């Protein structure tokens, strides 16, 4: 079933999976996250866009893995032991995001989400829907649909 409980109705509580990309802490509505794994058996796809890291076998499905760093306009990082793949399902498309490590799951009330600051880079600001102030840090909330469309745009521009 697709997630249909996304409305802008006031004061709604949702759970967010948080993770690291470079040094920043990001969050994603958990209803989009199918699973988190750490398989690195990626098959490179020649001539594909920069943001495509490759394709992998997810229990019999072939899933495209995207590189969140590239999408955020960051230089490619090294893969380390904390790297994980978030497998997301968004409007029927399944794709993966490789991130630099996962953190907690936070329950966030939508009223506590503030507009993203205006000094974000263009690449970042497209993907980020809002900012949540946690106890110690800021969590930038990522919109999966935007991730998908940004990566497809990147692909088309490359072509």
């Amino acid at each position, binding site marked *: 079933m*697709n997630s*249909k409980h996304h409305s802008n109705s006031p004061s709604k509580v949702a759970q967010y999976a948080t993770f690291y990309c470079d040094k920043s802490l990001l969050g994603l509505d958990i209803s989009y996250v199918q699973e988190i794994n750490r398989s690195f*058996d990626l*098959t*490179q*796809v*020649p*001539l*594909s*866009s920069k*943001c*495509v890291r490759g*394709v*992998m*076998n997810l229990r*019999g*499905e*072939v*899933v*495209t893995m*995207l590189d969140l760093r590239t999408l955020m306009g960051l230089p490619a990082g090294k893969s380390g032991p904390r790297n994980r793949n978030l497998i997301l399902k968004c*409007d*029927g*498309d*399944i*794709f993966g995001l490789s991130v630099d490590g996962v953190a907690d799951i936070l329950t966030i009330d939508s009223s506590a989400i503030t507009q993203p600051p205006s000094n974000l880079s263009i690449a970042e600001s497209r993907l980020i829907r809002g900012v949540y102030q946690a106890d110690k840090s800021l969590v930038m909330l990522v919109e999966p649909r935007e991730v998908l469309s940004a*990566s*497809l745009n990147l*692909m088309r521009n490359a072509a």
Partner: protein
Amino acid sequence: MTCHPARAILRELTSLMLIVHSRDVALSSAEARSMDANSELQFLFLRFCLTDKDMFQDDELVQEFVVESAAHLAQVEGQLLEIESAGENYDIEIVNTVFRAVHSVKGAAGFLSLTVINSLAHSLENVLNMIRNRELSVTKSIVNTLLRSADQLRILVDNVESSNEVDVSELVSQLDAIYSGQPEQPEQPEQAAYEEKLETQLDHALEQAEQNVAAMESEVPPYSFGDEMQSSPMQSSGDVHEQFGQESTSDSPEVAESVVPHPTAPTPKINPVKIMEKTPAKNAESTHVSGKNKATDSIVRVNVAILDRLMNLAGELVLSRNQLILAVSNGTREGLEAIASRVDQVTSELQETIMQTRMQQIGTVFGRFPRVVRDLSNKLGKECVLDIEGDEVEVDKTIVEAMGDPLTHLVRNSVDHGIESPEKRKAAGKSAVGRVRLRAFHQAGKVCIRIEDDGAGMDPIRLKTKALEKGIITVDQAGTMSDNEALRLIFAPGFSTAAQVTDVSGRGVGMDVVKTNIEQLGGTVDLESNLGRGSAVHITLPLTLAIVPSMIVGCSGERYAVPQANIVELVRVPEAEMSSKIGTVHGAEVLRLRGQLLPLVRLDKALMLREESDAGDRPKSANILVLETGQMRYGLVVDSLYDNEEIVVKPLGKHVRDLGYLAGATILGDGYVALILDIVGLAMHSNLRNIDLVESDDHAEFRNGDEVHRLLLFTNHSCEQFAIPMAMVARIERIKSSDIRFIGCQNILIYRGQSLPIIRLEQSIAALPPDYEPENLFVIVFRVGDREIGLVAPALKDIRDVQMVIDAKTLREPGVLGAVIVDNATTRILDLMELVRLKYADWFVEENPVYSEKVVETPTVLLAEDSDFFRNHVTRTLESEGFKVIGAVDGRDAWDHLQAIFDEIDVIVTDIEMPRMNGLEFAKAVRSRENTAGLPIIALTSLAGDEDKERGALAGINEYQIKMDPVRLVDAVRRLAGTTV
């Protein structure tokens, strides 16, 4: 089925209204009017929901109705046509079937309050009832009305949501007029109107079909499944609005005008002038569309027996899984192998059974063609019958669906361009009625479809001129082009064969798209034509797309899969021969392969897998896959070759789907993903063009030379090379040498549960025994009569087309025909039949008496053969079987002989390629003379392709026999001698 999204929204809106309403009440309870207005609004909404609910009480029910009615109606058209063609003596049982089909549609429609469908079906049923009771004579115009009504019913059923809005009163009143027995005089203008409308519909259907064909090119990714779900707007949640809009048509007809019936279907360019008012033309565009969005296409009917079997298999799989888990947790290896083999068995059976559920009869596509041919030939003023064979041939559902439009195009082409007008046909001495044959059959694990017509055929010269005009080929190319290559020009983009572009065929979307579509399905298409006699299109398709036998290759550390269907052969060029075998022409790398130049594509370069500086990583030798895709042939250079695997094709995600060179992905045994290469895409990506020309030049060179035989070369002892004509080889098996047992003075190989007698060369002829005993051996299997026998070949060398200059004296012995020089090595050509005779003489004796009863006296054979070697060989063979043989050195010589002594000759055996007069000309000459016309003619050939055979058949040749297969030749001569054909 889930809750209808539109309804869910309505429900939500209604509840929202309720909230608004109650607030209003609280705020201004005095204002009764406002409340009234609100309740009015609320009432309207409720009614909306209710009517909506009433009409589509249950999605499932409606879906079922659509699927079932479509199934009922699918047959009706053909049955009506059958009734029409039977005339007065129509079969009541067929009328009954039609009646029952319409009746059940009517019943179900009534139940679902689909009033328009119900009333049309009712009127149709009335007329059918009269026909059933023979109260009405069936005229063409009545059948026309019936056909139109059936068409309209189908359209209504396909667009069931909006069916109640369609005006069918015209049809209903016509049907009722027939029913009430009114004279048919108003038919005349209506007939004209109908013709016109039919034209419009045809136009639309054609336009749509062409667009579909074109759309398919971009829409249907080759080898991909699971798209049905994605491309169906009805099922994806993102289309709530469209659906909402569509449903609301039931209440607001104005809205209906603005709603496009199929939001995702390619919107056709509708010429507004052609749409007639008050006709359901708006819907007509979907009449013949094999739209993927329809409910009927996403549902498969499965035999309960198959489901039961699937259940059983699933049960067994669970059982095996439990055993496996137990074995793994116990850590014992014991019994693990048994479990593994069980899992293996169950999964392959499961796979096979699931495949069965996807299989559909190709008749579902063929069914539409009788009508297409009828309407089209009526329109063009031609007379034409369509023969359909092989309705029951089963193919994967996806292929059946995808073939609809290409086949329609081809059938239309046959009627439009192929079949001539009755006058022309009569003038050419043919029957006025043209014949189009549509055949489907299985062959060698593939499905073949042929579309043949006995029309005018295609003129290679005209095709060349046309291609020249259009700048598709150059003058030089036209000069060197063979007839067959000229025919293939119609597959070139931008080529249309009609001298004038008619409105029926040829609207820019041509044969090139048909060809691309078929190739995307992993099939091939080929053409054949005889000027004045007709043309034939041969289509070969794989049985299924889901599982593709493929070769796994490696390049720059990654593995890729290449479909076996595209691989012609594998060539390995060792380091030492790199410079002599691989060269460059205008900067493009080519491989010298048996005198031909084969363009090369380096996979690492094409996909930019290596930096230029890393080119040194390349292996020193080259592994080349020789690939063929219909019109292209090229070599793909890869680093390494792995194994052949049956791979399961998985679709790729959006980001990588359209890269052009990929056909999908698969998961290998180790869980790693391998990409599947699209051979056509890769060639285009690498800008490979004009490949035909390189090839055709080389072909010409070959054809002009001596006769070419395809030989399988192998060694027994590594110093001695032997050859066997490929035509004799049934197959080649790789076995363990320990599997050959010596039993009762014979070598026997046990395999596939049978024992196969084995011949070892060193035991039969003067040959050295193998200098080493490898673990694995090849066995060349061939047939003698209905038995099989194997010949041990320790090391296979190559398969070559060799121009045979045979020395039949020096090394001749029983079992050896003679010797040729191949690659500077003396190669002995084996006579397999003699080899067998040496060992198993009794195999031949017992067969003879069967024939000797028929043979009254010594039959005389006239043998035309220019090669002394073969003439002597065949003469010897035939004489040893008791025939009298008169030899001739070529066709002319044989013709001279024949005229002198035609009454002595019982059968003619002739070579094809001969100087002065070739075999085909000779055969034609024989057929043209009254006193020799009845003589049976057997052609001897070295490489008999189907194409050659058809050409031979046209010239009057009765049978083809392979030169080096004396058993079959003798058999054929015996069978045909003395008979008259």
